[in-house]
C-alpha cells in the first residue's frame, strides 16, 4: 500500500515533534491518569464495600432492645418491607488481656446463624465449637494489636461475672470494617475488641436464654426503610426498644462512608480540574503548534488541497500527538487506581477487592482531551486556511506591533531593545500571554492545592489534640457514678488532673430530621477536653443550652437559637427540649456539648459522671493503667497517644498517598507546559533569534530574548498560582462535608514554596534544554528564508 504524501508528512511531522509529543503526552497522561486513578479507586472501594455487605448479608436495620422473646422475630418478619429478620444477643464487657496493663473494652455478639445476617469471614484458626461455651473469635485488628493468637486465653467481665475465654480464631465482619469504641472517633485496636461466641453461652451469661436483645433486619427490595423503622419501634416498644436505626447510622458504616466520602472529596474534586487544566493547556499548545505551520497550510491550499483535507490532516496530527498520552494515562491511571484501591482495601479491612474504574471515566477523560486537542488544532487551521494561497506564497507582512499600547508601554517600561522585544511579544497577544499565565498558574495551583491537604490534616491534628483534647487518658465507667468516683481517680499516684464528663446516648430531632448523637456535658473552665473552633478558640458550654457542631446543625437543618429535642436512650429515657445556643465549626469531637451541671439537672440526677479525662505524669502512665484495671466499674480506658498514632497512621497516611500522586501529576503538568511553551516560542522566534545571531549577538544575549519571555510568564504565574492554589485548597477543604470530622484549612508557607520551587526547577530544566537549541540555530537559513 502506498501512503499518500499527506500521510507521509503526518508521520514525519510526528517524528519531528517527538520531544514536544513527549511533553504533551505527559500532560495528557497526568490529566487522564488522575481521573481514571481517582474515580477507579473510589468506585472500586464503593463496589467492594457493596459486594462485601451483600455477600456477607450485612443487616439494613438494627433494632436494639432490652429483651424480647425469640418468638417476637416472627412478628418482625411479617412487617411489610422486611425480607428477613433475626435476633441476636449482644453485650459490652471489660476484658482482661494478658500483656495489656489497662482494661480493654469489649463488644460481645452471639455468632451469626450459618445463613443469617452479619456473617463473619474467618481469617485464621477456626470458629468456636458448637458445644464449647468458652471458645471465641475476635476481630483480626484487635488480635493483631493485642498480640493474641488462636489458643490464647483471656477473661471478660460480663455484667459482673468473670468468664474465662479461649481464642479459636480471628475474623472480619462487615459490621466492624472500622472497629471503634463507643464515643470514639478513631480506632484504638489495642484497647477495643469485638468478640463472637456461641449464643447459648452468651445468653447464659446475660440471663437472656430464649431471648434476644437486638433485632437485625434485611429489607425487601424497594422497601421504605423509614417506614420499617417506625413500625419496628412501635412493635418493639414493649420490649424496651431504644430506637431502630438504619445501616447508615451504624457506627462502622458511618465511618467507612465518612472515610470514602472524605477520600472521594480529595480525589474527585481535583482530578476533573487536572483534566480541565491539561485539556486547556493542550488546546493552547496545539493551536500554537499548528500556527507555526501557517506557511505549509498556505502552500497546500495553493496546490489545490481543500480546507477539509487540511483540517483533517492537522486533526490527525493533533490526535496522533495525543495518542501516546491517552494510552499512557489510561494504563497508568488504571494501574495506579488498582494499586491505591488495594492499599485502601487493606486499610478498610475488606476481605477482597473489586476493581472498577467505569467505562465513563475512560470515555469522559479521553473524550475531553481529544475535544480540547482537536478544537485547538481546528481553530488554528481555520485561521491559517483563511489566507489566500497567494498570501502564503508572498513573504508575509511583518506582524503588526504598532498598537499604541503595545508600542509605548514597552518603551516606557524598559530601556533596551531586547527587553522591549520580550514585552511587546507578550503585549501584542495579551490573550495568549494571559492563557499561558493561566495555564502555568493552574498547574502551580494544582500542586499547592494537592500538597496542602497534608498541611490541613496537620492543622486538624494540632487543633484536635493540641487544643481540644489535651488529656492523656479517657476513663469510661460501666455505669454512671457519683462525684466520689472523681476523687478516687484523682488520688491515683501519677494523675495530675481529673475532669469529669457526663455522656448519654440520645436521638436528637428537629422537625422531621433525626440524628443519633451523644450529649456530652463537661465542666466550664475545663483545661483538658474543650470545644474548639477551626480558629483554635475555646468555646465554653453555656450554663443552659447546647453548643452543636456545624456538621450536626447541617444534618438537623437548624440555626443557632432553634430548639432541638433530645430523646435520651438510656436510664430513665427522658425527652428533653434544648435551645441551641451556638453552632461552632469544630474539627472533631462531640457534636453536642453542654454544661455538665445543666445536663445532670436535665437528667434529674446529682453530680453524676460517666467518666473522666485524666492528665497523667508521663512516668506513671503504666502504673495508672494498672491501677485503673483494679478499679471497679472502669469499663474502658483510651490513650490519646494511641489515638493520635491511629490518626497519623490512617488519615494522615491515606491522605499522604493521594497527595503524593496529585503532587507528582501536578509537577508533570508544570513540566509539560513549561517545555511546550518554550519550544513553541523558540519556533516562533527562531528567525528573529537567528537574525540577531547573524548580526553579532552572542548566544547569551539571544537566549535572553527567548528565555526572558518564559521567565516573565513564570514570574507572573507564581503569585497568581499561589492565590489560585490557596483558593482551591480552601474550596476543597470547604467541600469536606464529612459527617464525623472536618478538616480545617492549614496554611504552611513551605507548601507554596515547594510548588514555586517545582515550577522554577521545571523552568530552569526547560531553559537549559532550549538554550542548547539556541546554540544550534541555523544562521544561514535565517538569511534565506522568509518568515
Amino acid at each position, binding site marked *: 500500500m502506498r501512503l499518500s504524501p499527506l500521510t507521509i508528512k503526518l508521520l514525519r511531522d510526528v517524528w519531528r515533534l517527538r520531544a514536544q509529543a513527549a511533553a504533551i503526552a505527559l500532560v495528557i497522561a497526568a490529566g487522564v491518569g488522575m481521573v481514571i486513578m481517582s474515580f477507579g479507586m473510589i468506585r472500586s472501594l464503593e463496589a467492594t464495600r457493596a459486594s462485601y455487605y451483600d455477600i456477607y448479608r450485612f443487616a439494613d436495620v438494627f433494632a436494639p432492645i432490652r429483651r424480647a422473646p425469640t418468638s417476637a422475630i416472627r412478628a418482625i418478619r411479617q412487617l411489610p418491607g422486611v425480607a428477613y429478620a433475626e435476633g441476636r444477643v449482644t453485650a459490652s464487657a471489660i476484658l482482661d488481656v494478658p500483656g495489656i496493663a489497662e482494661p480493654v473494652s469489649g463488644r460481645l455478639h452471639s455468632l451469626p446463624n450459618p445463613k443469617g445476617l452479619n456473617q463473619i469471614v474467618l481469617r485464621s484458626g477456626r470458629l468456636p465449637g458448637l458445644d464449647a461455651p468458652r471458645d471465641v473469635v475476635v476481630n483480626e485488628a484487635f488480635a493483631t494489636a493485642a498480640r493474641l493468637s488462636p489458643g490464647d486465653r483471656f477473661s471478660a467481665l460480663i455484667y459482673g461475672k468473670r468468664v474465662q475465654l479461649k481464642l479459636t480464631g480471628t475474623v472480619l465482619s462487615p459490621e466492624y470494617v472500622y472497629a471503634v469504641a463507643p464515643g470514639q472517633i478513631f480506632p484504638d485496636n489495642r484497647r477495643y475488641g469485638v468478640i463472637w461466641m456461641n449464643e447459648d453461652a452468651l445468653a447464659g451469661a446475660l440471663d437472656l436464654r430464649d431471648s434476644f436483645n437486638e433485632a437485625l433486619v434485611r429489607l425487601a427490595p424497594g422497601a421504605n426503610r423509614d417506614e420499617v423503622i417506625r413500625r419496628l419501634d412501635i412493635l418493639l416498644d414493649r420490649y424496651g426498644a431504644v430506637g431502630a436505626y438504619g445501616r447508615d447510622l451504624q457506627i462502622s458504616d458511618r465511618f467507612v462512608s465518612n472515610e470514602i466520602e472524605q477520600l472521594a472529596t480529595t480525589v474527585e474534586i481535583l482530578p476533573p480540574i487536572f483534566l480541565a487544566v491539561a485539556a486547556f493547556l493542550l488546546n493552547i499548545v496545539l493551536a500554537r503548534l499548528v500556527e507555526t505551520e501557517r506557511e505549509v497550510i498556505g502552500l497546500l491550499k495553493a496546490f489545490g488541497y481543500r480546507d477539509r483535507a487540511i483540517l483533517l490532516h492537522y486533526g490527525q496530527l493533533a490526535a496522533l500527538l495525543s495518542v501516546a498520552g491517552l494510552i499512557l494515562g489510561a494504563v497508568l491511571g488504571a494501574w495506579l487506581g488498582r494499586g491505591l484501591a488495594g492499599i485502601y482495601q487493606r486499610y478498610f479491612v475488606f476481605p477482597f477487592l473489586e476493581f472498577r474504574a467505569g467505562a465513563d471515566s475512560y470515555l469522559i477523560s479521553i473524550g475531553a482531551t481529544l475535544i480540547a486537542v482537536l478544537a485547538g488544532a481546528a481553530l488554528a487551521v481555520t485561521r491559517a486556511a483563511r489566507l489566500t494561497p497567494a498570501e502564503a506564497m508572498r513573504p508575509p507582512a*511583518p*506582524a503588526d*506591533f*504598532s498598537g499604541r499600547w503595545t508600542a509605548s508601554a514597552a518603551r516606557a517600561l524598559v530601556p533596551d*531593545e531586547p527587553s522591549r522585544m520580550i514585552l511587546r511579544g507578550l503585549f501584542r497577544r495579551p490573550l495568549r500571554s494571559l492563557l499561558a499565565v493561566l495555564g502555568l498558574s493552574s498547574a502551580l495551583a494544582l500542586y499547592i492545592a494537592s500538597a496542602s491537604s497534608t498541611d490541613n490534616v496537620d492543622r486538624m491534628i494540632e487543633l484536635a489534640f493540641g487544643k481540644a483534647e489535651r488529656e492523656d487518658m479517657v476513663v469510661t465507667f460501666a455505669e454512671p457514678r457519683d462525684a466520689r468516683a472523681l476523687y478516687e481517680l484523682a488520688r491515683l499516684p501519677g494523675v495530675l488532673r481529673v475532669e469529669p464528663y457526663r455522656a448519654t446516648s440520645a436521638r436528637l430531632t428537629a422537625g422531621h430530621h433525626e440524628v443519633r448523637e451523644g450529649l456530652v456535658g463537661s465542666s466550664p473552665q475545663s483545661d483538658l477536653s474543650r470545644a474548639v473552633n477551626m480558629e483554635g478558640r475555646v468555646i465554653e458550654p453555656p450554663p443552659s443550652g447546647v453548643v452543636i457542631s456545624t456538621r450536626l446543625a447541617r444534618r438537623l437543618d437548624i440555626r443557632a437559637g432553634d430548639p432541638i429535642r433530645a430523646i435520651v436512650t438510656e436510664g430513665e429515657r427522658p425527652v428533653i427540649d434544648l435551645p441551641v445556643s451556638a453552632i461552632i465549626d469544630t474539627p472533631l469531637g462531640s457534636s453536642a456539648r453542654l454544661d455538665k451541671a445543666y445536663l445532670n439537672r436535665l437528667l434529674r440526677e446529682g453530680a453524676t459522671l460517666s467518666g473522666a479525662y485524666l492528665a497523667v505524669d508521663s512516668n506513671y502512665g503504666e502504673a495508672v493503667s494498672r491501677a485503673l484495671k483494679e478499679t471497679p466499674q472502669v469499663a474502658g480506658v483510651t490513650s490519646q497517644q494511641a489515638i493520635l498514632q491511629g490518626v497519623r497512621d490512617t488519615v494522615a497516611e491515606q491522605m499522604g498517598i493521594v497527595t503524593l500522586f496529585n503532587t507528582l501529576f501536578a509537577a508533570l503538568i508544570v513540566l509539560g507546559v513549561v517545555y511546550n511553551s518554550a519550544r513553541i516560542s523558540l519556533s516562533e522566534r527562531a528567525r528573529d533569534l537567528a537574525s*540577531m545571531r*547573524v*548580526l*553579532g549577538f552572542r548566544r547569551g544575549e539571544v537566549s535572553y530574548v527567548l528565555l526572558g519571555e518564559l521567565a516573565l510568564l513564570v514570574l507572573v504565574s507564581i503569585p497568581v498560582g499561589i492565590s489560585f492554589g490557596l483558593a482551591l485548597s480552601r474550596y476543597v477543604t470547604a467541600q469536606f462535608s464529612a459527617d464525623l470530622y472536618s478538616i480545617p484549612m492549614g496554611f504552611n508557607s513551605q507548601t507554596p514554596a515547594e510548588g514555586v520551587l517545582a515550577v522554577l526547577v521545571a523552568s530552569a530544566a526547560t531553559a537549559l534544554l532550549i538554550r542548547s537549541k539556541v546554540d544550534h540555530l541555523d544562521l544561514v537559513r535565517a*538569511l534565506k528564508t522568509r518568515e
Partner: protein
Amino acid sequence: MSTGRPARRRIYHIEDLTKTYGTGPAAVHALRGVNLDVDEGEMFVLLGPSGSGKSTFLNILGGLDRATSGHAHFFDTNLTDLDDDGLTEYRRESVGFVFQFYNLIASLTAHENVSLITQISKDPMDPAEALAMVGLKERIKHFPSQLSGGEQQRVAIARAIAKRPRVMFCDEPTGALDSETGVRVLDALDRINREIGTTVFIITHNAVVAEMADDVVLFGDGRIVGRRSNATRKPPLELRW
C-alpha cells in the same frame, strides 16, 4: 567616477577556499578552490546562477559558515582559525548584514531595530543618523508592519551601517523588491560605500546591478569563473531592469 583610487589596505585575502557538504558519493562541492583579494572600500558584486557557490562564499566571509579547507584572511585574522565565539565577535564588531527578506524584528520600531545593534557596538552612529542616511528620517517611529518592502530594506541597511562595520554583506538585497524600490535600496548602499568607505559585497542574480560595482566576480560551479572591474560605477538611480 573615481578611477585613480588611492592605495587601499587589503581587507580580504582568500586562498584555495573549499567547502564540501556531506561525505562520500553524496558530497556536494559548493566551493572548489576560490582565490580572491579584496581592497578596503570597494563595492563588490557577486554574480552567478543558483548553486554556483556565491552564497556559500559569502557565508564563509561573513563568519556564518566554516570552510572545509583553505584560508580566508580578514586583515591579519584568519577567519578559518576562529571558533564559534570568535566568529560571533567578528560579526559583532566588523560585519553588517542585509538580508533578502530584511529580517527586521517586527516587535521593534525602525529606530529600535537600529539601536538594537548600536547598543552592542563599540563606536556606533546615532540610529537617527543612520536612518537619515537611507532617507528614512521621517519614519523612525514606525514598526516594520507600517513600512513598505523598500523602506524595510532601507531600515535593514541602516541597521547594518549604524555600527560602522568594515564590511557589509548583502544577499539578494533587492530580490524581494520591485525595480523602482530596488534602485532606491541600491542607492542607499552606494552612498554608504562612498560616504563612510564600507566595503560592500552584493550577491545578486541581476546582472544590471553589476554596473554599480567597482569589481564584479562571476561564480560558476564552485569557482570564480570571471572577474572584471568597471571603469566607472554607474549611479544606482540610473539602473533599470
